[in-house]
């Protein structure tokens, strides 16, 4: 069963000037792009949605439960997180990472499932390589496949394209669209306006701003880079 992520009147613990009270729903099969200048709280929002940070006020719930109070293993089956920097020094092979992701998600880590996940993530060719020997872009692709193999419901992406080339960015954006079509809910924090516009699936986006600059707002219309720039620089 897929769970809905709900953010109810959440005020973030950082930054100090705040980002206003944030309320939104992420039902299965939805995606939201989170934009904002540096230091407006994008990463804090994602960490709060993941239950890693506690909000100053308000609650984040995943299904029936506050996300921060869920047992870590149950939460992992429904929520995965990808940060901007792929891990280094992990000494695991690509297929071992996927095997761990299936375990974390509470799925049987059978050979078939591992192969299917490797295939879906487009990383089957590197299955037996150590992720330490991959480039940042390749390792990030592994981490995206890891998140997809792990979580049934929600995937949170914190600037996943920061180290990627133009093709890599396009692939990440295509992945997000595909996950949404599979019924997963995705939150993508990014500065990569052009790649989002090019992907074409974004019809819900949030601009994070401190209250002094008008506060955060959620726009529900097809994303355009120009409209986003205007709101960001206002």
């Amino acid at each position: 069963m897929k769970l809905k992520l709900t953010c109810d009147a959440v005020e973030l613990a950082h930054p100090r000037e705040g980002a206003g009270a944030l309320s939104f729903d992420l039902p299965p099969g939805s995606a939201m792009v989170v934009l904002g200048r540096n230091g407006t709280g994008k990463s804090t929002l994602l960490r709060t949605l993941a239950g890693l940070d506690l909000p100053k006020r308000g609650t984040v719930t995943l299904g029936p439960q506050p996300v921060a109070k869920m047992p870590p293993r149950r939460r992992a089956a429904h929520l995965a997180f990808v940060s901007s920097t792929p891990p280094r020094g992990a000494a695991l092979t690509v297929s071992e990472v996927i095997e761990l992701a299936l375990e974390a998600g509470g799925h049987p880590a059978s050979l078939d499932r591992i192969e299917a996940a490797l295939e879906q993530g487009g990383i089957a060719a590197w299955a037996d390589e150590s992720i330490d020997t991959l480039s940042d872009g390749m390792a990030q692709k592994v981490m995206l496949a890891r998140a997809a193999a792990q979580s049934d419901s929600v995937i949170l992406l914190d600037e996943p394209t920061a180290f990627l080339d133009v093709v890599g960015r396009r692939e990440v954006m295509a992945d997000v669209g595909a996950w949404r079509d599979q019924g997963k809910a995705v939150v993508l924090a990014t500065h990569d306006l052009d790649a989002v516009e090019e992907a074409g699936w974004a019809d819900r986006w949030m601009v994070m701003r401190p209250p002094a600059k008008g506060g955060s707002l959620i726009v529900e219309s097809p994303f355009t880079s120009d409209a986003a720039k205007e709101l960001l620089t206002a």
Partner: protein
Amino acid sequence: MNARWSNPVLLAAMVLLFIAGLFSGPAQLAWSEEWRALSGEGSPTAVTIMWQLRLPRLMTAVLSGASLGLAGLLMQTYFRNPLAGPSVLGVTSGATLGVALVALGGATLGWMPHALNMAPQVMGALLGSGAVMVLLGLVMGQFRSRTALLIFGLMVGYLAGALVTVLQAGAEAGALQAFVHWGMGSFSQGGWTPCAIVAVALVGAVFWVRRTASLLDMWTMGALTARTMGVDERKLSWGALGTAGVLAGLVTAWCGPIAFLGLATPHLVRAAGAPRRHAGLLWPVLLTGATLALFADGVVRWFGVPLNAVLSLVGAPVVLMLIIRRGRWSSSQAQGA
């Protein structure tokens, strides 16, 4: 080495060294006499040599080597630092200070006999190693780089060393001599009781690592990723640091501050191509640690060199090699710590 063959090969090496150690020694007993003494027959002297000296010494080496290897593996995983180990991050120094407080401070105050008194000494070592582990766990988040953590361990080592020197300066001659001898490291100071205690701790540690193996694997991908994969950071931290601290503390209490064994063992296992996941690393690490300890003990017995000298002669080049090869992970230092 092929993963399928590595455990049997390591086990065979360990057993061979154990047998060699059992049937050789300065006493020059005949084979037949040694063999009879093992079943409790023959001259009482031979029985004593076999059952009170050689067997407990070899068992101490096996258990200590395995324990330090496992402690080293846990520390390298937890700190995501290939240079972590009980003797590098100040854990052994903490245990040494604990022992010095009991053995030297106690004797000076007159509430301890001259010889090293085991029970308080074990408590001292455990408290010392435990304190450093807790300190490391607390400050770990403050360090942006892996190098900072190593420097922290080094400084803790200096501080503990300075306090030990102060205690030594004021110590009474008999206690000082016993302490200096202990500090050279040896597997011969134990007996059956320490063997039993270390064995119980080691079995507990092995069970914990087996149950937590996947979580330890996830931890190597970074704290943030691991936490969102279902790792309870607090539980894992206490488990890993506590297990490594108890193992290192117990071994230090009886065998002295053993150098390099904990640091070098996991590296040798990985260099030999053992599996990367912790479930597969566990047995090769235990067996390699035990084998290395038996080998070092053999050198000690044949050449009369102190144990720590032997281990440093082998261990220091391993660390140098690691630092030279460090380029591979130094560029991403900040991310992992």
